[in-house]
């Protein structure tokens, strides 16, 4: 029972992070390898706002979320916009470089020590006993809830809203979309903003649950196989992929060897790349074969 709860919590974490990869990839075909760092940046923003607005935790959270959206948009406007039209690899390498830059800046500004935004906000984190005897911490439960809400919102946004439809159009065929009068730069900037926002939600909840350290970057990177296993341009796929990765990781840690934790997602990824490189629910056409 505890095992199932662990799997669901981990899957929710991965899914919440993975949707950031999917959003950007689906719209602009760029793989954002700085996602882990951006998500950590978001949680450090929460720490800062928690110090600034002491006594108003909800204000602090709202401001931090707004700021993270702005950070994502700024990253696109000042950096990734210059890489449009370049080789895809150059864009990916730029995100890697951005990740290194952010990692350095975060240590300079906030130091490398473990921080607890939960204490700064004055939140306690009691564990809840579920029927069946399994335990789950409050914020872990909140992560599952947030994942459900974020995914529902994203599905609705992409399906029904005007900007969501534009976003899908830009992802399918940028040239045609631009000719129909869709502002591609605005769409891309929005995708980066939303991606950073969802990543930051994941980062903040993780930081509230278990503290804020540099290992968060690795969690961000481990969520990437989840996105790829499901298919890099499919939100639904990201959910399923996260479940698969989380199930494999938790059960292998439990039954085989705890040291495996960091490689399991990548082992699953290799298997997937051999069998079905475009992922479970991804679009096949973008891969051409020899």
């Amino acid at each position, binding site marked *: 029972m505890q095992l199932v709860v662990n799997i669901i919590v981990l899957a929710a974490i991965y899914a919440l992070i993975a949707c950031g990869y999917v959003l950007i990839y689906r719209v602009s075909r760029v793989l954002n390898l700085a996602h882990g760092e951006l998500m950590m940046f978001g949680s450090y923003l929460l720490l800062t706002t928690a110090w600034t607005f002491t006594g108003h935790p909800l204000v602090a959270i709202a401001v931090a979320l707004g700021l993270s959206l702005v950070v994502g948009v700024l990253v696109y406007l000042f950096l990734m916009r210059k890489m449009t039209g370049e080789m895809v690899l150059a864009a*990916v390498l730029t995100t890697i*470089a951005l990740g*290194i830059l952010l990692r350095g800046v975060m240590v300079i500004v906030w130091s490398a020590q473990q921080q607890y935004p939960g204490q700064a906000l004055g939140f306690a984190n009691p564990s809840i006993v579920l029927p069946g005897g399994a335990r789950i911490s409050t914020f872990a439960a909140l992560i599952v809830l947030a994942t459900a809400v974020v995914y529902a919102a994203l599905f609705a946004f992409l399906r029904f809203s005007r900007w969501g439809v534009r976003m899908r159009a830009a992802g399918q065929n940028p040239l045609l979309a631009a000719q129909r009068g869709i502002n591609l730069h605005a769409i891309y900037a929005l995708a980066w903003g939303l991606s950073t926002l969802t990543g930051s939600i994941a980062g903040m909840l993780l930081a509230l649950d278990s503290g804020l350290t540099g290992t968060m970057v690795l969690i961000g990177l481990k969520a990437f196989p989840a996105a790829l296993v499901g298919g890099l341009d499919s939100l639904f796929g990201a959910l399923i992929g996260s479940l698969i990765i989380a199930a494999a990781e938790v059960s292998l840690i439990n039954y085989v060897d705890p*040291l495996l934790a960091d490689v399991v997602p990548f082992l699953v990824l*290799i298997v997937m*790349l051999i069998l079905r490189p475009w992922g479970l629910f991804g679009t096949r056409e973008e*891969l051409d074969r020899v």
Partner: protein
Amino acid sequence: MSKRMPRASGYFRTGYAQDFKLVETRLERVSASLFVISLAIFPFVASPFQLDLACQVFLAAVGSLSLMLLTGYAGQISLGHAGLLAAGAFTAGILFKEFGAPFWVTLPSAAVVGGLLGIVFGLPSLRLRGLYLAVSTLALHFVVVYIGGEYEAKRGYSTGIVIDPPSLGGHAITNPRIWYFVLLAAAAATFFICVNLLRSRSGRAWRAIRSHETVAEALGIGVANYKLLAFVISSAITAVAGALFAYYRGFVSVEAFSLFLTIQYVAMVIIGGMGSLLGALLGAVFVTLFPYWIEAVLAALPGAARYASVLFAVNYAAFGLVMILFLVFEPLGLVGIWHRIQTFFLLWPFKHRPVAGPNR
């Protein structure tokens, strides 16, 4: 008559013997011999610290040349370079610890292990391209590092494996000056292997694959074979570099082979300039010395003590920034800058090439 002419004037080779030459003009001969002489004198005038820097540069050069072969010429993107270096280092370490093997056994076996891993790393490239290939090599990096970590943990070397310096005829190589020449020889050997590979059939095949795979296939090039060959050769050289690194440091640990090391090597290739061996060398020098420059700059700034604790973070940030600047503003890298300077002086006092003039 072509002998004495500078290259920009339309330089023609008139025989096969000239085609085989590595240094052609007098200026090249003079500068090459000056370079060799200065390399030979350097260890006798340099401080131990500078000597160590030079050794690091040579080690990095071996790794970056092999990555340039794979990425810059064959066009196959690899993010598993640190994994291959780790494989070489661990081959040397494990053979030394388990069997007490001398270096003339461990180095070739590192090359063999690297070559075999090259096949493993290269197999996805037959199906995948670009981004997906990069991701699959990234995944293999984690697998190799995990296996290394597992070995360390299971055999009780949790802090790392200590390796004795290699010995030749009963004398252990510990003198930094000898190390300098050993590593210089390794770097030079790698450089000439790469130069000659690129001038041969395989080099031409790789370049064809890089520019257009389908066309290369249509021209009768065995794309799959040559892709695998690129991976095997590059990985074998990289693994030897890893083994040399292990001997030079006298110590192997998985912590040294993080993802950041891969990024550093990729940065060497990018900052140096894609598709140029000179670029790989320049990149190796730049990236290896970069943290020391940053340190020197910080020490010169007021309030140096304040930065001492976050020095590595400043390094990270500056490194990321430099990489971004190169990617955005100078995609051709240091070699691109060098060519621009060359062109400027060749054309002076004019600014542009004549429309129907000799192209490079």
